[in-house]
């Protein structure tokens, strides 16, 4: 399921199938409008980096796409299904095909690492306990954790390990789309680089589509095929890094050509 159509190459992204289509979406809280008629497509097999100032509403868009926040107008289609028109069964079928990595990991604190990874599998698939265990260890291995981490509780893990376990859980059902909310925040530069590589490797082997909210210029530079910029409640640009660097928009200029960007080697 995961690899379905992963042959779609990144280069021809424009002709590729859009797995997430955000059309004219408005999201607001009370009297403030956070996202004002925004449009965004995410194509199959690409890594999309989503950037914007703190509080600009990056996570809001992500949470709206995955259905945690209500929208006021517009349509969101995921894998061709209009999420607001879909019934519960259809929604659930789609939810099975995506995985979400929350910013703080959101691991279930009363389950062990292994049980956390097994949880979605156990709920959705009827497989034997032996296979459950083996798959959990395979996922742990994939995200670069030793098997003995499996019996630890989330409270006993370091920040980097929490991110890795959360990624393993997001990948548990072999999803087609993975949403990552600031995957490298709170990691040291080496750990963040490793995590970038990990995401890239898994994305290639599993044929994932990755929607990544991030602030990490290194991640944007190294693993994102396209970057979408959220500013002034709109997506003001979406395209490869070269396009970001060429932009004359003041916020993008400050972001991609500022002091930190120079350090990152952009």
């Amino acid at each position, binding site marked *: *399921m*995961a*690899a*379905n159509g*992963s*042959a779609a190459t990144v280069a021809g992204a424009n002709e590729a199938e859009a797995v997430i289509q955000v059309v004219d979406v408005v999201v607001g809280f009370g009297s403030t409008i956070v996202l004002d008629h925004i449009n965004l497509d995410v194509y199959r097999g690409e890594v999309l980096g989503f950037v914007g100032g703190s509080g600009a509403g990056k996570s809001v868009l992500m949470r709206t796409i995955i259905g945690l926040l209500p929208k006021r107008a517009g349509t969101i289609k995921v894998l061709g299904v209009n999420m607001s028109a879909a019934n519960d069964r259809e929604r659930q079928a789609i939810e099975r095909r995506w995985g979400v990595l929350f910013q703080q990991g959101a691991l*279930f*604190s*009363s389950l062990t690492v292994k049980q956390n990874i097994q949880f979605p*599998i156990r709920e*959705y*698939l*009827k*497989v*034997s306990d032996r*296979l459950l*265990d*083996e*798959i959990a*260890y*395979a*996922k742990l*291995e*994939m995200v670069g954790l*030793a*098997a*003995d981490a*499996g*019996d630890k*509780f*989330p*409270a*006993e893990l370091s920040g980097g390990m929490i991110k890795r376990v959360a990624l393993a859980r997001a*990948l548990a*059902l*072999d999803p087609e789309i993975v949403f990552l909310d600031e995957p490298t925040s709170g990691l040291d530069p080496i750990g963040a680089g490793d995590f970038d590589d990990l995401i890239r*490797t*898994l994305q*290639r*082997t*599993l*044929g994932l589509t990755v929607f990544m909210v991030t602030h990490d210029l290194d991640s944007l530079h190294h693993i994102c095929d396209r970057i979408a910029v959220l500013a002034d409640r709109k997506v003001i640009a979406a395209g490869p890094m070269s396009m970001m660097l060429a932009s004359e928009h003041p916020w993008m200029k400050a972001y991609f050509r500022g002091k930190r960007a120079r350090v990152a080697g952009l």
Partner: protein
Amino acid sequence: MSDERLLRSTLNGERLELAGTGAWTAVNARALEPLIGAEARSGRRRRNIRTVTVDMAGIEQLDTFGAWLLERLLRTYKARGCETELLGLSERYAGLLDEVRHTNLTNPVEGHGHGNSVIDSLRLVGASVASLGADSLKVVDMLGELAVAFARVLVRPRTFRLTSTVYHLDRVGWHAVPIVLLITFLIGCIIAQQGIFHFRKFGADIYVVDMIGILVLREIGVLIVSIMVAGRSGSAYTAELGAMKMREEIDALRTMGFDPVEVLILPRIVALIIAVPLLTFLGSLAALYGGGLVVWLYGGVDPDIFLGRLKETISIDTFMVGMVKAPFMALVIGLVACVEGLQVKGSAESLGRQTTSSVVKSIFLVIVLDGAFAMFFAAIGK
């Protein structure tokens, strides 16, 4: 899902030829796993197999589940000393198989939790006895810390957190008034009704007033209020402190040079010590009122007679015996709630566990304390 659609096997002399077809994905894992297992078992019977080839050219989809099952199949035959060969696997799945190939299963079975069930249950009993001792030590420890914090506040009254105390007093005192009044009123009514019903049989109706007065003022008022406060405010204290502990807020306070006992616990317990006697007083009045109402409406005793009789039976001592217990009850509830709150570990489950044990322990201790007071007052003849 027919078997043929996922895995076919043909035996060719010393060579076993397996061919995978269709979608080897999570959805089909349930059907695929027994096939792999059956293949491995039948292979054991056919000892003469030297080489196993797995042709994966017919695979339409492969995910981690399928890749792992393939790996498991290959490992089974490798462990048996067969030569294995993988054919025709599509280029795009090669990386996936490489990922699962490194999976290490040397450590999968955890070695705890199994053993003699009798010994296990004995061990559990032993552990709980030991934890009982440790828990009482923690409560005493907290009492000591509280006393130190209180002494510090006495020396430097400006460090006392008045705002916080008033805020907690509002929550555990003022907001508890309606429910405490309602419950104690009802309890008073019930005691009176039961008393009249049974005392009437031997013409002792009027003694119901004695019973209500003494029972409510000495025991029931303070007990009911303490139990309600333990359930209402003790649990809240535990949950608040526990959540703060989980989110490292308490550590943050400590690193800023504040004493959590002084900042968080002292105001909460002081608020309880003020609130519980007041609630006991109000609750006792409500219970007496409820009792008087039932004695009048159901027992036909006029309010004048009720009040007169009440004045004769109860003295200030009866009232004081009840009231003097209230601050101690508050202290016990507050101490247990705060100690349990600080015991919370990282998980949501542990927060729930400590909150439950906070309420259970404080109600238990309140009743034990009440018994101790009863013995004490009996000894001094009050």
